[in-house]
């Protein structure tokens, strides 16, 4: 698994390496020309001399940063990996954090908690609702509830979440003025009312994610529960007279846990990608909105930074999932 993690990192760096280098080179070029223009002490007899000086200076600085070697040279590669690990992602082009810092790391760290807040809450709700609903319909296959749930799952899985978000804005912000259309609260973060305001603004995106997510979820859980309910030990418990609800909600669900945990963790990681679009729709002040803004203004360092972070979170989640699976299901050994 560690190999996979490392290979993923290498692949990402390979994809982004050349672009990162280009950005750095451009920044250096810009800096040097700026410096030559502003420095009154530098006088050149001919324009060619001036150009030669600029080129020399650019080369010197590139050497200093190690840009004279390609991104895949062992030394630079180790450096990149180390830099990524300490989240040193360079400077943004235009966007800044709320405190005005242009460092990509600061901007992302400022937005990360809000994304985590929205998505942990929504995934928890979706998981709990989906688990119980799935167990409920899994015990009543073929009933009207089961069919409603299956139909709903098929429909909701083909709807783009962000489009449902736009419909929610239309319904709850335009038609009925219940929730604000923009999820970015107007009160300043230092205000004590900020937390409450933030939660109020979180309701609409939260409802959207839960609405789109829980149907497919319940459908997955139903699939596992049906499998478990066919096992002999469940029949044995039934004959022993253990109440039906106890069998389903504590015995069956517990035994369905390993695959369910895997899917929960994977969907949690996957929903981070969904975060991007849902946040963009609602203007929720998290990484997704930042991503959307960065794409709009083509702020490449930020785009790369967020991609790094999202990839990292995803890969780590996949890794932890494998460990958890082994913990829940002792038959599986960590490979």
């Amino acid at each position, binding site marked *: 698994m560690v*190999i*996979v*993690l490392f*290979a*993923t990192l290498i*692949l*990402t760096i390979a*994809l*982004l390496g*050349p*672009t990162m280098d280009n950005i750095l080179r451009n920044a250096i070029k810009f800096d040097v020309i700026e410096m030559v223009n502003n420095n009154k002490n530098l006088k050149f007899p001919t324009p060619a001399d001036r150009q030669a000086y600029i080129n020399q200076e650019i080369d010197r600085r590139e050497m200093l940063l190690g840009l004279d070697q390609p991104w895949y040279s062992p030394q630079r590669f180790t450096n990149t990996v180390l830099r990524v690990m300490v989240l040193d992602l360079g400077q943004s082009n235009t966007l800044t954090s709320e405190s005005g810092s242009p460092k990509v790391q600061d901007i992302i760290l400022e937005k990360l908690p809000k994304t985590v807040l929205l998505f942990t809450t929504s995934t928890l709700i979706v998981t709990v609702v989906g688990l119980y609903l799935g167990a409920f319909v899994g015990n009543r296959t073929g009933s009207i509830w089961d069919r409603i749930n299956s139909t709903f799952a*098929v*429909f909701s*899985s*083909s*709807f*783009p979440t*962000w*489009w*449902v978000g*736009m*419909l929610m*804005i*239309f319904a709850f*912000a*335009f*038609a009925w003025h219940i929730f604000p*259309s*923009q999820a970015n609260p107007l009160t300043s973060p230092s205000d004590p009312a900020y937390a409450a305001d933030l939660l109020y603004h979180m309701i609409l995106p939260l409802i959207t994610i839960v609405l789109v997510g829980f149907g497919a979820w319940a459908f997955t859980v139903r699939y596992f529960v049906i499998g478990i309910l066919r096992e002999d030990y469940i029949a044995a418990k039934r004959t022993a007279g253990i109440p039906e609800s106890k069998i389903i909600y504590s015995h069956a669900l517990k035994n369905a846990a390993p695959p369910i945990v895997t899917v929960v963790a994977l969907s949690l*990681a*996957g929903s*981070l*990608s969904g975060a*991007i*679009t849902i946040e*963009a*729709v609602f203007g929720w002040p998290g990484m997704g909105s930042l*991503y*959307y803004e960065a*794409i*709009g203004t*083509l702020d*490449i360092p930020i*785009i*790369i930074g*967020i*991609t790094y972070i*999202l*990839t990292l979170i*995803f*890969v780590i989640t*996949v*890794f932890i999932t494998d460990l958890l699976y082994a913990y829940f299901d002792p038959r599986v050994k960590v490979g």
Partner: protein
Amino acid sequence: MTAVQVSSRSEIIRKFRRSKSGVAGVLLLLALIVMSIYAATAVPLESFRQWNNPAIWIDLPKSAAPAWTNIGFGPKVPQHIVLRQGDAEISSSSDAGVTTAVHSYKIDFNYDTYPNDFMLLYSARYGGTQPVLQIDFVRPDGNEFQVYYASLPPSRQEINDFSGRLFSTDKSIAANLRSYSSLFSYPPDPSSPQEMIFSDLHERKVLKGTYIIRETFLLFDQQDSVTNSGVILGGKVYGVMGTDDLRRDLSIGILWGAPVALFIGLTVAIAGVIIGLIYGVVAGYKGNRTDEGLMRINDIFYSLPTLPILVILSVTIGSKLFLITGFLVIFGWVGMAKISRSIALQLKNMPYVEASKLMGQSDWKIIFKHIIPQLLPLTFASIAISVPSAILGEATLSFLGLSDPSIPTWGQILHDANTAGAAARGLWWWVVPPGLMIALTGLAFVLIGNALDTIVNPRSRK
């Protein structure tokens, strides 16, 4: 798991026909195909290629609702009317060397609210003496308002072709209308001519009836001529699907979105599934180290987050439609490779495969002649199942603003809608149809895929 059962083609079709959801999916897909054919034949390719060129759409209203919203209760809002020279009644007379050309347009205005604005188009070809243009509105109550009287700009060459547009916001219209203020029993507002011209004299409400808009050209030379004229009465509703903020006719974008989405979905799904099929079968059949190595690569792709990588690819490499289709293929083969590998693992121990191996057939021949044909039904199901994610993937990229500007997609329309805040402004006709089309296209393939899958995939049989 039971061994793979080979079902005959007719049996699959028979079972598929019995599946209600499968038939519903096929019907939906047929509707989409009809829509694509209609788009390709009836809507000129030009208007679709020019989707992002504002000059093409200038005659249409800004964010107008679909015309059918007028049916039903509530006040009838004016429809957007575009009249070209062909709709005009043209007469001309000549007196003492002066030619008078009159283009009159008849408009039945039976709506409950005022038009948004109006625009008068005119073009003329003339030499040294510039012609004079006079515009009159003849109202249903018989009053005539002369709103404009001015000469065209002097010609710069021998023969000047001049095209102009007179907007209702033109200052001279307001100035001319001021002289009719005394006709009204209340103080009218000449600064919004569309309201004053279409108002009742005694009450502040719309005067319904037939209006005639007359463009009179006075030409002072035999060679001079009027080459074009037209009237655009800016309404609040237009067409089958309305227009967006940039005056684009949404029905064209939505119609043309269908073939584009089908192209992306099918290309990505077919390419991805075939790559995955061959990859998985090779891994499963060869086994040992080849299997181990190939499956590790598969694992790596499996642990990459799709969307961020897609975003980075389109930002760094490009966002042309064909490129994006290619990027989506990169992630489209992973799932199929896993499934086909596990089935190939079972198939390779089947007696007939072992027999052909003993007969000395080459590995490649066995893979392509004996194993892959067994997997074909499953392949079709997998293609259908992976189409929606490809369409959603493209739509999401477009929605984030990474799309081909020369080809409108449903995701791109929604991106524009989101940027303009359409949902919060209540422009539902801009938000609902494109998303619904994405959802329905996805749904069609999900239904077909699930129905096929329950028939051909041994895993989902109960």
